[in-house]
């Protein structure tokens, strides 16, 4: 066991206003396909940042680069002032500060909900069993699943599984949580409970980066929205700027496709100007 593995968490002295995550010039290629073409981004403390964009735009790749689940081809990522490197024990240590909630939940199927939430504390942070259990129960309470502590993931609904996954991330007391399309694998009626859980977290002073297709959610909780397309950040701003006054043609086109059939209710503009969304208030099957 290396010294770094023994260190439970990494405590950094953050100067006021220094970003929790600083990404510079990120490029990522898979073979000949360039998924990211130079992305710069700062995530500030307490900020809720939503990343939107079409499928295959590189937004998930970008999120995964932030803790080196994908190692960028070019560029640097600093988390809490520490530069991530693909090799070496420091990556393992830094990752303990970055929670991740995956699209497919990725719960450990051979463990109960409680054990799932305890595992990272035991094997990652080196907490004792009783500490981990207390931490896990507290985290499960936060997502409203104390009564499911002994259940295996298979016995839970998709929404409950994702809430356990959120509890698992929370229990590590991370400095930032990354959400990779947390509701995309869920049936529509199960999304609300997950979004609701996330909204509560957002109201606390938490740093969150959320890749999402839930525009109404992004508008509601985000401090800042980033629109990614073609592996670059095309536009960023407040939810109002992004959803109500999109500047770029690409964003306008994207929004018009996303809001097809949803009507104008979600996208009314302050100026009263009709935004360039094709939705005309028609209702669809859903």
């Amino acid at each position, binding site marked *: 066991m290396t010294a770094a593995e023994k260190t439970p968490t990494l405590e950094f002295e953050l100067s006021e206003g220094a970003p929790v995550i600083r990404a510079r010039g990120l490029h990522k290629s898979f073979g000949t396909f360039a998924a990211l073409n130079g992305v710069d981004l700062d995530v500030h403390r307490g900020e809720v940042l939503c990343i939107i964009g079409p499928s295959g735009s590189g937004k998930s790749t970008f999120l995964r680069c932030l803790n080196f*689940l994908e190692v960028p081809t070019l560029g640097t990522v600093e988390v809490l002032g520490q530069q991530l490197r693909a090799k070496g024990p420091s990556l393992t240590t830094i*990752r303990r500060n970055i929670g991740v909630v*995956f699209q497919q939940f*990725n719960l*450990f199927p051979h463990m109960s909900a409680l054990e799932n939430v305890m*595992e*990272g504390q035991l*094997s990652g*942070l080196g907490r004792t069993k009783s500490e981990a259990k207390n931490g896990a129960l507290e985290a499960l309470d936060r997502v409203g699943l104390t009564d499911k502590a002994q259940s295996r993931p*298979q016995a839970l609904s998709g929404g409950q599984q994702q809430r356990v996954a959120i509890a698992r991330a929370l229990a590590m007391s991370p400095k930032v949580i990354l959400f990779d399309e947390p509701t995309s694998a869920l049936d529509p009626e199960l999304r609300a409970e997950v979004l609701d859980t996330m909204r509560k977290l957002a109201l606390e002073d938490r740093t969150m980066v959320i890749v999402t297709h839930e525009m109404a959610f992004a508008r509601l909780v985000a401090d800042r929205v980033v629109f990614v397309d073609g592996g670059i950040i095309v536009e960023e701003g407040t939810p109002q700027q992004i959803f109500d006054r999109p500047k770029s043609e690409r964003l306008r086109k994207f929004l018009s496709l996303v809001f097809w059939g949803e009507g104008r209710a979600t996208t009314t503009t302050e100026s009263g100007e009709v935004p360039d969304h094709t939705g005309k208030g028609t209702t669809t099957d859903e």
Partner: protein
Amino acid sequence: MTVLAADYIFDFGWVEANLPIFFRAAFLTMQILMWSAVISVAIGLVTGQMLLAKSAWLRTPARIYVDAFRLTPMIFQIVAIFFLLPILFDINVAAFPSGVIALSLNYGAFFSEVFKAGVQSIEKGQWEAAHSMGISNTKTLVRIIYPQALKRMLPPIGNMLISLTKDTSLVSIIGVAELFNTAQNVGAATFRQIEVLVLVSLFYLVINLPLAWQVERMNKRLNNDGR
């Protein structure tokens, strides 16, 4: 039309006098089995992991070893380790350990492939979830990957252990006085080869049955573990 078969009279009169020899032989067979099983599983765990390594420095030697032992006859390996090692390297290994080494190396090669496949069958997301919580590779393997992989690997592992029991008979050719070797000797002395083979088959059956049951029981337990 042959009537010879009907004319053959089975004679088990020699059994009683020879039974102690067979029990001693059965004990030796079980010792070979235990040692080979433990060592081959240990080899398989290490080389299976080496086969999955990113570094070619780890992967290539493991691949060469696995293929050398998987793709050549075990009987050759048993003979080679017993007779060739003294010639080539001037080291003498007694028949029993030499047989155990040969069986372990051969089965270790097959176990490597089983363990490799088992680890590979676990979704990438499990690794990612563990890595994202800062859990080391070794801990991820031990606590997250192997417990899940074991469920999938148990049937092939059980099959291999059962095969191993039977393959211990191959070390008879280098003169280890295990069941099969003893059968040949007693058969030659009593001229009752067929009856002797029937008897030792029963011994193999008696060794393997509890093994097969145990694997089945574990399999059931792992698969019912859904809660």
